[in-house]
Protein backbone atom coordinates (compact mmCIF):
# COMPACT_ATOMS: atom_id res chain seq x y z
CA UNK A 1 0.00 0.00 0.00
CA UNK A 2 1.01 3.61 -0.68
CA UNK A 3 0.14 6.31 1.82
CA UNK A 4 -0.72 9.72 0.33
CA UNK A 5 -0.61 12.77 2.62
CA UNK A 6 -1.94 16.26 1.93
CA UNK A 7 0.12 18.93 3.69
CA UNK A 8 -0.59 22.41 5.03
CA UNK A 9 -3.83 23.99 3.88
CA UNK A 10 -5.08 21.05 1.80
CA UNK A 11 -8.01 19.86 3.88
CA UNK A 12 -8.04 16.21 2.95
CA UNK A 13 -7.49 13.02 4.97
CA UNK A 14 -4.59 10.74 3.99
CA UNK A 15 -5.29 7.98 1.48
CA UNK A 16 -4.06 4.37 1.41
CA UNK A 17 -3.81 3.29 -2.23
CA UNK A 18 -2.70 0.27 -4.18
CA UNK A 19 -0.79 1.95 -7.04
CA UNK A 20 2.60 1.51 -8.76
CA UNK A 21 3.54 5.00 -9.88
CA UNK A 22 2.66 8.70 -9.65
CA UNK A 23 0.86 8.65 -12.96
CA UNK A 24 -1.81 6.39 -11.46
CA UNK A 25 -2.10 8.76 -8.48
CA UNK A 26 -2.54 11.72 -10.85
CA UNK A 27 -5.37 9.94 -12.69
CA UNK A 28 -7.12 9.06 -9.41
CA UNK A 29 -6.86 12.55 -7.89
CA UNK A 30 -7.97 14.25 -11.10
CA UNK A 31 -11.37 12.56 -10.61
CA UNK A 32 -11.96 14.80 -7.56
CA UNK A 33 -12.98 18.31 -8.78
CA UNK A 34 -12.06 20.07 -5.51
CA UNK A 35 -8.48 18.83 -5.93
CA UNK A 36 -7.97 20.53 -9.32
CA UNK A 37 -6.39 23.74 -7.98
CA UNK A 38 -4.12 21.86 -5.56
CA UNK A 39 -2.97 19.47 -8.28
CA UNK A 40 -2.00 22.46 -10.43
CA UNK A 41 0.01 24.33 -7.77
CA UNK A 42 1.43 21.62 -5.50
CA UNK A 43 4.77 19.87 -5.50
CA UNK A 44 5.09 16.12 -4.86
CA UNK A 45 7.51 14.27 -2.61
CA UNK A 46 8.07 10.52 -2.29
CA UNK A 47 9.48 9.49 1.08
CA UNK A 48 10.21 13.17 1.79
CA UNK A 49 12.22 13.79 -1.36
CA UNK A 50 10.76 16.08 -4.04
CA UNK A 51 10.21 14.33 -7.37
CA UNK A 52 9.82 15.77 -10.84
CA UNK A 53 8.61 12.92 -13.03
CA UNK A 54 5.22 11.21 -13.24
CA UNK A 55 6.62 7.76 -14.05
CA UNK A 56 8.34 7.69 -10.68
CA UNK A 57 7.90 4.07 -9.47
CA UNK A 58 6.19 3.46 -6.11
CA UNK A 59 6.70 0.40 -3.92
CA UNK A 60 4.78 -0.97 -0.94
CA UNK A 61 5.22 1.26 2.12
CA UNK A 62 6.13 4.42 0.20
CA UNK A 63 4.81 7.76 1.41
CA UNK A 64 3.68 10.38 -1.11
CA UNK A 65 3.21 13.98 0.06
CA UNK A 66 1.54 16.89 -1.71
CA UNK A 67 3.02 20.30 -0.88
CA UNK A 68 0.92 23.35 -1.80
CA UNK A 69 2.51 26.84 -2.27
CA UNK A 70 4.72 27.82 0.67
CA UNK A 71 5.37 31.02 2.60
CA UNK A 72 7.67 30.73 5.58
CA UNK A 73 9.13 33.61 7.55
Amino acid at each position, binding site marked *: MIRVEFLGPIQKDPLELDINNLSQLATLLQETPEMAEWLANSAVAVN*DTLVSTLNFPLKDGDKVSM*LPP*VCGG
Partner: protein
Amino acid sequence: MLKLYDGGLDVPTILETWYTEESKSNYGAFIPFIGTIRDEDDIEGLSFDIYEPILEKWFKAWQEKAKTRNAVIKMAHSRGDVLLHESSYIACVFSPKRRVALEFINEFVEDFKASAPIWKYDLKNGKRIYALDRSTAIKGSGLLGVK
Protein backbone atom coordinates in the same frame (compact mmCIF):
# COMPACT_ATOMS: atom_id res chain seq x y z
CA MET B 1 21.30 24.22 13.79
CA LEU B 2 17.58 24.31 12.97
CA LYS B 3 15.17 24.80 15.83
CA LEU B 4 11.38 25.14 15.82
CA TYR B 5 9.44 26.85 18.59
CA ASP B 6 5.75 27.01 19.47
CA GLY B 7 4.67 30.65 19.07
CA GLY B 8 6.79 33.80 18.77
CA LEU B 9 10.59 33.70 19.06
CA ASP B 10 12.67 35.15 21.89
CA VAL B 11 14.92 37.06 19.50
CA PRO B 12 17.47 38.57 21.96
CA THR B 13 18.07 35.20 23.63
CA ILE B 14 18.44 33.31 20.35
CA LEU B 15 20.84 35.91 18.93
CA GLU B 16 22.92 35.88 22.13
CA THR B 17 23.04 32.07 22.13
CA TRP B 18 24.19 31.89 18.51
CA TYR B 19 26.78 34.66 18.95
CA THR B 20 28.16 32.97 22.06
CA GLU B 21 28.23 29.52 20.43
CA GLU B 22 30.54 30.83 17.69
CA SER B 23 32.48 33.32 19.80
CA LYS B 24 35.77 31.40 19.45
CA SER B 25 35.19 29.97 15.95
CA ASN B 26 37.12 32.79 14.28
CA TYR B 27 34.33 34.00 12.01
CA GLY B 28 34.77 37.64 10.96
CA ALA B 29 31.17 38.27 9.89
CA PHE B 30 27.85 37.35 11.51
CA ILE B 31 24.58 38.33 9.79
CA PRO B 32 21.20 37.42 11.25
CA PHE B 33 17.93 38.03 9.42
CA ILE B 34 14.91 38.51 11.69
CA GLY B 35 11.35 38.38 10.36
CA THR B 36 8.62 40.06 12.42
CA ILE B 37 4.83 40.02 12.03
CA ARG B 38 3.61 43.36 10.65
CA ASP B 39 0.32 44.92 11.63
CA GLU B 40 -1.44 45.07 8.24
CA ASP B 41 -4.66 43.97 6.50
CA ASP B 42 -6.48 43.90 9.88
CA ILE B 43 -4.84 40.63 10.90
CA GLU B 44 -4.47 39.59 14.54
CA GLY B 45 -1.32 37.67 13.73
CA LEU B 46 -0.07 34.85 11.54
CA SER B 47 -0.04 31.11 12.00
CA PHE B 48 2.34 28.53 10.55
CA ASP B 49 2.23 24.85 9.60
CA ILE B 50 5.60 23.17 9.07
CA TYR B 51 6.38 19.84 7.45
CA GLU B 52 9.48 18.99 9.41
CA PRO B 53 10.97 16.02 7.49
CA ILE B 54 11.40 18.00 4.27
CA LEU B 55 12.35 21.20 6.11
CA GLU B 56 15.19 19.31 7.78
CA LYS B 57 16.43 17.89 4.47
CA TRP B 58 16.26 21.31 2.87
CA PHE B 59 18.21 22.83 5.76
CA LYS B 60 20.80 20.07 5.70
CA ALA B 61 21.47 20.73 1.99
CA TRP B 62 22.07 24.41 2.82
CA GLN B 63 24.38 23.46 5.67
CA GLU B 64 26.47 21.46 3.20
CA LYS B 65 26.50 24.38 0.79
CA ALA B 66 27.58 26.70 3.62
CA LYS B 67 30.40 24.32 4.52
CA THR B 68 31.84 24.56 0.99
CA ARG B 69 32.19 28.30 1.57
CA ASN B 70 33.60 27.89 5.12
CA ALA B 71 30.39 29.35 6.48
CA VAL B 72 27.85 28.20 9.06
CA ILE B 73 24.08 28.75 9.04
CA LYS B 74 21.54 28.59 11.84
CA MET B 75 17.79 28.97 11.74
CA ALA B 76 14.81 29.25 14.08
CA HIS B 77 11.12 29.32 13.11
CA SER B 78 7.78 29.47 14.85
CA ARG B 79 5.05 26.83 14.73
CA GLY B 80 1.40 27.80 15.25
CA ASP B 81 0.20 31.30 16.11
CA VAL B 82 2.48 34.34 16.26
CA LEU B 83 0.98 37.68 17.26
CA LEU B 84 1.54 41.16 15.82
CA HIS B 85 5.07 42.54 16.37
CA GLU B 86 6.36 39.14 17.47
CA SER B 87 9.07 37.47 15.39
CA SER B 88 8.54 34.13 13.63
CA TYR B 89 11.81 33.64 11.77
CA ILE B 90 15.54 34.07 12.39
CA ALA B 91 18.21 32.85 10.02
CA CYS B 92 21.89 33.67 10.24
CA VAL B 93 25.22 33.08 8.59
CA PHE B 94 28.68 33.13 10.11
CA SER B 95 31.62 33.41 7.72
CA PRO B 96 35.27 34.39 7.81
CA LYS B 97 34.57 36.90 5.03
CA ARG B 98 32.16 39.81 4.79
CA ARG B 99 31.32 39.32 1.08
CA VAL B 100 30.51 35.62 1.51
CA ALA B 101 28.26 36.38 4.47
CA LEU B 102 26.36 39.16 2.67
CA GLU B 103 25.79 37.02 -0.41
CA PHE B 104 24.94 33.87 1.53
CA ILE B 105 22.27 35.39 3.78
CA ASN B 106 20.61 36.82 0.67
CA GLU B 107 20.58 33.51 -1.23
CA PHE B 108 19.55 31.55 1.84
CA VAL B 109 16.61 33.78 2.79
CA GLU B 110 15.35 33.91 -0.80
CA ASP B 111 15.47 30.14 -1.21
CA PHE B 112 13.83 29.75 2.19
CA LYS B 113 10.91 31.85 0.93
CA ALA B 114 10.63 29.84 -2.29
CA SER B 115 11.24 26.30 -1.03
CA ALA B 116 10.90 25.73 2.71
CA PRO B 117 7.79 23.60 3.41
CA ILE B 118 6.05 26.10 5.67
CA TRP B 119 2.48 27.34 5.20
CA LYS B 120 1.30 30.73 6.38
CA TYR B 121 -2.19 31.67 7.53
CA ASP B 122 -3.63 35.07 8.42
CA LEU B 123 -5.38 35.16 11.77
CA LYS B 124 -8.62 37.12 11.32
CA ASN B 125 -11.60 37.07 13.69
CA GLY B 126 -10.03 34.05 15.32
CA LYS B 127 -9.97 32.17 12.02
CA ARG B 128 -6.96 30.79 10.12
CA ILE B 129 -7.00 31.88 6.45
CA TYR B 130 -4.37 30.37 4.12
CA ALA B 131 -2.22 33.17 2.60
CA LEU B 132 -2.32 31.74 -0.92
CA ASP B 133 -1.73 35.10 -2.64
CA ARG B 134 1.61 35.60 -0.78
CA SER B 135 2.71 31.99 -1.24
CA THR B 136 5.07 30.51 -3.83
CA ALA B 137 4.57 27.20 -5.63
CA ILE B 138 7.63 25.01 -5.02
CA LYS B 139 9.76 24.47 -8.13
CA GLY B 140 8.31 21.59 -10.16
CA SER B 141 4.77 22.02 -8.83
CA GLY B 142 1.79 20.90 -10.90
CA LEU B 143 3.15 17.42 -11.66
CA LEU B 144 -0.03 15.63 -10.59
CA GLY B 145 -2.25 18.01 -12.56
CA VAL B 146 -0.76 16.96 -15.91
CA LYS B 147 -3.31 15.06 -18.01
